[in-house]
């Protein structure tokens, strides 16, 4: 299990390949990539603030929770912070398990919890100003699925 919180870009292809190559005993690997949307050309940049220390601790707790619910052989979370341009990779999740149902469910669970329980805050920088992204009610409601 690995958690990385970083300003630097990451290589989704290389990370996915390395994760899959190391996933011994797994019959299924699921990966997810989150990318900065350009909002129809209106977005100049996305600034992601985080809470150093708590971020790593919160994500590790979420991964541990997932590993307790599904028989994962491995999991990976990489999440960036700082200033990102439209089209840039924000974060990725990878899960490995003997069977695909657990790998898919755990990846979905990780995404739902990372959205509302990991201390990141997004700010959209547009051509006519900057605005904090408001948390959505449906993101909070999504946690109820689990």
């Amino acid at each position, binding site marked *: 299990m690995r958690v990385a919180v970083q300003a630097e870009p990451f290589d989704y292809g290389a990370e996915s390949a390395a994760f899959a190559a190391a996933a011994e005993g797994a019959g299924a690997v699921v990966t997810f990539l*989150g990318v900065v949307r350009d909002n129809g050309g209106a977005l100049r940049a996305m600034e992601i*603030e985080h*809470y150093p*220390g*708590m971020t790593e*601790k*919160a994500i590790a707790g979420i991964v541990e929770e997932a590993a307790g619910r599904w028989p994962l052989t491995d999991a990976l979370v990489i*999440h960036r912070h700082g200033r990102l341009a439209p089209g840039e990779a*924000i*974060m990725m999740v990878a899960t490995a398990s003997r069977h695909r149902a657990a790998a898919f469910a755990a990846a979905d669970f990780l*995404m739902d919890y*990372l*959205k*509302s*329980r*990991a*201390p*990141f*805050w*997004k*700010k959209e920088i547009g051509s006519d100003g900057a605005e*904090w*992204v*408001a*948390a959505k009610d449906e993101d*909070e409601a999504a946690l109820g699925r689990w």
Partner: protein
Amino acid sequence: MTEIDVLYFAWVRERIGLPRERVTTGAATVAGLVAELAAREERYAAAFADISALRVALDQDLADFDAALDGVREVAFFPPMTGG
């Protein structure tokens, strides 16, 4: 009275105008601390006007506003998180 580090993130940080400060407080709970801070100046009152729009972490774990401050060294206030 005890000294604790108080941290602010996102629009809470912007509204108050600083990322962190050391606070001397006699408050027993988070809500008591919020009341002390909100009474300081208009910018604090504005930031804490609606605590239903805020979340709090005690020593880097999410907590409730009625949680006790006993032994807590770091309190953080921030809006609902928007990761992923």
